[in-house]
């Protein structure tokens, strides 16, 4: 009996299928929770809070599912190498857009002022001239 090379070791087909389906289903449920949060909360920072975090986790889970669906260990490593830029870009850009939208919501007056516990922007009500 010859030993198969390490990179050629493969998950059995049904096991890989079940893992992929469960990961994709978890990612889909996280997307659904973000959408439910969009409908549930009342002002822009609340919706932002519900929208940005579960989405990124859902993308990570689905990217893991893409890697697992290759079945062999070499294929999984290759798949991880391919999907890691997507995850990194998502991690880099989601806080950026959330920060811009949240600050603009504060300046626009579309947030519920009475729900704030601490208001650290209050002293700098005047927008600095070069601020975005």
């Amino acid at each position, binding site marked *: 009996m010859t030993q198969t090379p390490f990179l050629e070791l493969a998950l059995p087909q049904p096991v890989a299928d079940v893992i992929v389906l469960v990961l994709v289903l978890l990612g889909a449920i996280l*997307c659904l929770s973000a959408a439910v949060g969009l409908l549930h909360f009342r002002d822009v920072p609340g919706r932002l809070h519900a929208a940005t975090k579960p989405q990124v986790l859902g993308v990570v889970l689905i990217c893991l599912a*893409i890697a697992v669906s290759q079945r062999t260990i070499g294929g999984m490593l290759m798949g991880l190498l391919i999907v890691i830029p997507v995850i990194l*870009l998502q991690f880099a850009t989601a806080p950026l857009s959330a920060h811009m939208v949240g600050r603009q919501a504060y300046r626009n007056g579309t947030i519920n002022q009475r729900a704030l516990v601490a208001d650290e922007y209050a002293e700098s009500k005047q927008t600095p001239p070069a601020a975005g």
Partner: protein
Amino acid sequence: MNFLVMAIMAVFGVAALLCVIRIIRGPSILDRTVASDVLLTEVMCVLGADMALNGHMRNVPVMLIIAAVAVFGSIAVARYVARRDNPTP
């Protein structure tokens, strides 16, 4: 197995529908921006789910470009939306 695929499709569909409802009803333009951002990320998730379930890698460039470019939409809207700097109470 088939039941799980149907459940995944139903969950994605319901999530997209809720996002569209928020885009239609959103009281301010920032609500619509946040909802459309969520919808765009969900399109990314659907492309990835298609790749994972059918076992191919053809959608990776589309996912990469959406992940890189999606941020500019919200930043542009947040930058140029009309601001009321000193609201007189």
